[in-house]
């Protein structure tokens, strides 16, 4: 999975900046996308391209359980968020709803990848290749259950009884 990176060099990007509370009444996914990241980066909607990734620090998606957050990012074209760590509800919403891949990375990837870099995420080898800088980093492998839900295409397509 190849794409370009939009980097937010900070920790604790919370759901209130990913999609502010006033938009929680909206359930049209395309409309939500127009407000994605509005609390932090009003230019996000105009600059994001289909297939882009977001890179950020620790505790990404902290705060509310609003599924609007991964929905707004996913429907903006974001295929994966790479972060040093994730808040738990954002993480499981991203996976169970099959909106985007939450990729846990180490400090080397965080420091090495810059805004605009083209990277390739290879989940099968747990590697991230930085095509722009010709570097490779490890990603934290998905836990067994998360890997299975992702492979199935979301929680509703995952069949626990067949394990």
């Amino acid at each position, binding site marked *: 999975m190849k794409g370009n990176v939009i980097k937010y060099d900070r920790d604790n990007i919370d759901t209130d900046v990913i999609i502010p509370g006033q938009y929680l009444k909206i359930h049209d996914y395309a409309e939500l996308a127009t407000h994605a990241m509005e609390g932090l980066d009003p230019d996000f909607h105009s600059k994001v391209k289909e297939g882009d990734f977001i890179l950020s620090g620790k505790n990404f998606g902290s705060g509310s359980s609003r599924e609007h957050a991964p929905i707004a990012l996913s429907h903006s074209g974001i295929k994966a968020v790479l972060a040093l760590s994730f808040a738990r509800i954002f993480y499981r919403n991203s996976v169970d*709803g099959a909106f985007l891949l939450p990729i846990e990375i180490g400090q080397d990837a965080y420091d090495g990848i810059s805004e605009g870099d083209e990277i390739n995420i290879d989940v099968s080898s747990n590697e991230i290749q930085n095509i722009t800088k010709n570097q490779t980093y490890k990603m934290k492998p998905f836990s067994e*259950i998360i890997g299975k839900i992702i492979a199935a295409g979301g929680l509703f397509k995952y069949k626990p009884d067949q394990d």
Partner: protein
Amino acid sequence: MNIVEKILARGAGKTSVSPDDVVFAKVDKVMMHDVSGPGVIKVFDKLKKQGISVDKLWDSSKVWVAEDHFVPSAEKVSAENIVKLSNFTKNYGIEKHFKYGMGQYGICHTISHEEAMVMPGDVYVGGDSHTNTTGALGAFACGLGHTDIAYVLLNGQIWFKVPETYYFKLNGKLPDHVMAKDVILKIIGEIGNDGGAYRTMQFGGSGIDEMSVESRLTLCNMTTEAGAKNGIVEPDQKVVDYLSQRGATNFNLIKGDEDAEYAKVFEFESSEMEPTIAKPFSPDNTCIVREAPSVELDKSYIGSCTGAKYEDLEAAARILKGRKVKIRTEILPAAISIYQRAMENGLLKIFLDAGVTVGPPTCGACCGAHMGVLAKDEICISTTNRNFPGRMGHVESQTYLASPLVAAASAVTGKITDPRDLK
């Protein structure tokens, strides 16, 4: 096993579970509100298109619904969401729908305890991050998103990774000027806003035994602000009495074993606790009130699931009795039952005499949605639980989180004020 491991083991039909085990646990109660409800309806629509049947819920008697975030409706999208939600509960035979304008209604987490919707030992999930609140009744109470809630509605179970538990021991009774809000802000300040991430935060010790059920609810509510999966207190006679007064019978009091294991134990002395605030823009950015920055406040807000229970209003009334507010002050009881008690016991008169505006239960201002949002550069002291950028309105407004005693004292002076320093 500790209490959470026992509850999840029971839910999963296993004799024992350990941290990091992945289980599918049967759910005893599920809640959604006027934000997560329409979100769930959207998921149901998607499932229908994929050929997955959504004709029948697993058990509509175990589902309850609150109207809280966008009531009273400020515009037509919110109004239409309430209509959608009402049609959904009617079509699926969900009887426990607490409707705005029809007797008891309020913030979902407040209804959970005021109406005894959740019982000790339950696996309880809700479509809201502060579902953690109700762990104070001795339940495993955990917030989930729309897809997960839709899954629970149709299947009656959901996956969990069994969390490890941090145990917070509070020794001794809190001084009169210190509230549970001060305690949880101090804890979040110490462990950080991801210090409890993916874990259980359990509270115990003589300080918790001494605490009211409502104070314990405040503690568990804000475990979310430390990233915790859930907060919990082992149920005692106070919980049984509290729920019995609200019509509950048949208690299953699950408690941890004597040799229960905790990943880490933190110990605090109540006598050393001080009135505490969280400064903008994070609940872990804490300091004691007497070391707070000297800022000119524009507003004091006493509301929300964590800051407008009956004892929160009583605390505010102790300060506001016979005094006048110096800044715009709003008090919104978190449920109609609390509003009514506040009226019967003279609290509303104290508030109105002090110059406060008293409003209906809603999440509106707490999440910056409606009913009193902040303008650019405005500064608010608030009994709510979050102060992220833009949380209560304009992205350049600021919120200080505080106990109802501190919020009320600050309303009187217009500055952030320790209740002990009020003349």
